[in-house]
């Protein structure tokens, strides 16, 4: 299976470990990822605030570049995913908007006809590759490891590969496939604050507090995430959460791709595990289910 890979800006910064672990496991899964040539920032949420035409034009440039390759685009950053998918929908739904975007693209001799399919890497793994393939690659199942399956927002909403964005199951299914035990995690689709951490940290920190609390109360050993921004907010800002709420959280936050790599028994370096601020100490435990 072959995709055009859109790393997104954070792949070279906050989300390096995400990018590294994806590059590591993709070949094993039989997924060919060809990085999009000369891609640009998708605009995240910031551009939407400034200028609609502009934000869609930015994403459209990436889609236009991808269209030349005529392969589906795959990204692992939820914000990038939403921007790419949403651009497709909007350009299709609002012709007058598309007209403007087209003129803008013309400035760089680009055209986009709306024929690029966009997918989140999690969707690719679970739907396109399939869990059987994943299971077949597991060498060191993460037995007994309790993982809080955190989806966050933009992988699910407004456009999602899931049947019911209110009640997603992909991540749980994947975690079970690699031998881990997903926790209930009532807040699994709740927001971590996203970029509010920059503009309104008091609010974002409280959201993170609730998520961390929920995960810890469920007895999770680690939180699995699908988005670099969630990872940074939940991990890098844990000390600030503790400072603000007098809590003492110290729970690792890893990308689902890193957990997969661990189960595939791949070297830590290749998975960027060293980039964890809060490292995962236990990798597997005597599985209560097994004992019972």
């Amino acid at each position: 299976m072959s995709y055009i890979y859109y790393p997104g800006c954070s792949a070279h910064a906050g989300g390096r470990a995400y990018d590294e672990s994806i590059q590591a496991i993709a070949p094993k899964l039989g997924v060919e990822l060809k990085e999009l040539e000369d891609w640009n920032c998708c605009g995240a949420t910031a551009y939407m605030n400034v200028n609609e035409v502009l934000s869609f034009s930015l994403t459209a440039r990436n889609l236009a570049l991808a269209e030349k390759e005529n392969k589906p685009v795959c990204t692992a950053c939820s914000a990038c995913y939403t921007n790419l998918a949403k651009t497709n929908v909007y350009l299709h739904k609002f012709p007058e908007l598309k007209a403007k975007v087209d003129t803008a693209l013309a400035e760089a001799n680009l055209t986009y006809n709306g024929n690029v399919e966009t997918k989140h890497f999690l969707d690719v793994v679970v739907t396109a590759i399939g869990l059987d393939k994943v299971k077949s690659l597991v060498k060191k199942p993460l037995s007994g490891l309790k993982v809080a399956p955190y989806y966050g927002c933009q992988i699910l909403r407004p456009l999602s590969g899931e049947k019911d964005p209110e009640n997603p199951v992909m991540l749980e299914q994947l975690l079970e496939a690699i031998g881990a035990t997903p926790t209930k995690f009532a807040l699994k689709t709740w927001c971590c604050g996203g970029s509010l951490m920059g503009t309104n940290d008091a609010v974002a920190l409280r959201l993170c507090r609730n998520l961390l609390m929920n995960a810890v109360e469920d007895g999770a050993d680690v939180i699995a995430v699908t988005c670099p921004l969630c990872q940074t907010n939940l991990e890098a800002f844990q000390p600030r959460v503790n400072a603000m709420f007098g809590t003492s959280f110290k729970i690792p936050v890893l990308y689902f791709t890193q957990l997969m790599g661990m189960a595939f028994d791949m070297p830590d370096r290749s998975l960027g595990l060293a980039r964890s601020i809060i490292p995962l100490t236990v990798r597997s435990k005597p599985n209560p289910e097994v004992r019972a």
Partner: protein
Amino acid sequence: MSNKIGVYVCHCGTNIAGTVNIPELVEFAKAQGDVVVAREYKFMCSDPGQALIQEDIQKLGLDRVVVSACSPLMHEPTFRGACEKADLNRYLFQMANIREHCSWVHVDKGAATEKAKAQLAGAIGKARYLAPLIPKKVKVNPATLIVGGGIAGIQAAIDIADSGRKVYLVEREATIGGKMAEFDKTFPTLDCAACILTPKMVQVGQHPNIELLTYADVEEVKGFVGNFEVKVRKKTRYIDEEKCTGCGICQEKCPYKTASEFEHGMMKRKAIFMPFPQAVPKVPRIDPNTCVYFKTGKCKACVKVCEPQAIDFERKDEIVDIKVGAIIMATGYKLFDAGKIAPYGYGKYPEVYNSLEFERMVSASGPTGGDIKMKSGEKPKSVAIVHCVGSRDRRHNEHCSRVCCMYALKFAHLIKERCHEATVYNFYIDMRCFGKGYEQFYQRLLDEEVRFVRGRVASVSDFALDESEKGKLVLRVEDTMVGETRRIPVDMVVLANGLEANADAAKVGRLFNISAGKDGFYIEKHPKLAPVSTATEGVYIAGACQSPKDIPDTVAQASAAAAQVLSLMSRGEIEVEAATANIHEELCSGCRVCNTMCPYSAISFDDDKHVSRVNDALCKGCGTCVAACPSSAIFAQHFTDQQIFSEIEGVLHDVRA
């Protein structure tokens, strides 16, 4: 041939006159050949309007009448009647639809007037070639079929049967009673549902004029108003209904149990069972999926104890053919599946109940004997009632389900009554208490200190933010009156599910030739003036199959439908369509193409004369055979090639000119 055509243009108040230039249309009509008089009037359908026509027929000796007004489906009968009163054969009348098909759907006055002219010219064109026809009369079979044994079907059945006429009541389940049988109290009077329903059920069961066909489905409907032929499949109960005395010993002795559908799984029932003690008829049925005999061929515990030897494992379905003159559809509704709204946690949290489950819980004859308690056995200290679950929601049902506000209030009252110290919340978007005594009931609940929070609940979760929420179900909702988001922890959540059409409503409707709307509810002939009739003559609708309804409205509709049926019956005979097909024997080549074309096998073949013949008692006048006849030997009376060609020339008058 020259005619004397009279043309009458209706203003319909401003409905037509507001868009179509009436004087221009009248002038246009006058200019058409054969038209001897053209008039306009505010409301042609009114008595003075009709008088206008009748006067002209008599004074000017009109031999054709054309009315340019609303849809013929609306007023053709009216004007045909008017003509006939003036001794002009009804089939010499033609209508041009310039309201539904013109003034109501077009904005540009010029264009609308042009189209109106074309429609009128078409009608005049057809009128030129109209021929008088004499409608045949056929006897009306005095029996009635009622589909659905809920309160609607029961009421209609009794009303009709009491008049001394035969009623066949077909019910899909093994007992009549429908949804109402599951209820405890009824709003706003709080009289117990069973107390008012069961006597009626018994009455139906014993009524000499009512034949009950329970655990049965209608499989085929043929014929037309006055003479329907219906095939009903009585699914086997593995019980001989004649022999069974309903003693119920088999039920006691049967060793195998499963979850009771009637109690929504909150209680067990046997493999041989009656849905509930008051079931009518008092005949159990065996559920082969639970009965071990069907798996292992052993047991037969029930057979051993059945004195009248009514149990017969070999018993097959039986097909019953019935003939009736009229049909009433009373197929009811289905409760919205709350599981479709994930954030409400139905099916996820044990203390989230849907409305019918709660009805059973509060019912004295239900699983808890009427006690309101949690799975733990304790009484809840706080209960949340959530309105509009699956109603007023574009993702599910756009319509308001009409009864939820009131039954939610009823629930609140019953909780207050049985768990005095419990706090009860109602979360609503709008309180809709429109019926007689309903607003007063709302007032009463306000006095009972039920907490009303105006806001649609966003989510129900067991995630606790602090001690006060631990072990509770937490509702997150905006109190829209305050404009603040609230987290409200409760012990129990009751969902006020909306009402929706049965999953197979459209399919069933097709059997009876009636259509269902996008929402799945059956479409009435006219929303105001013919609410229980349908587009198919002789088929009527009553109750929640037409739209969500409370019990009073359902019963009223049922009696209305019964009245429609009785008026049909008392006429004794009805006129059937005279516009049938007719074969010119001298032109018929005897190719028999039409024989196979006719959907009603109304065309037979005369082997001696080697020609086909139409049996006009069976012919419905669809005209399929006419279009197929290779030698133009068949006429569709009132829709002849000549009439339609002339109509075509008419609607295209402006191109030809």
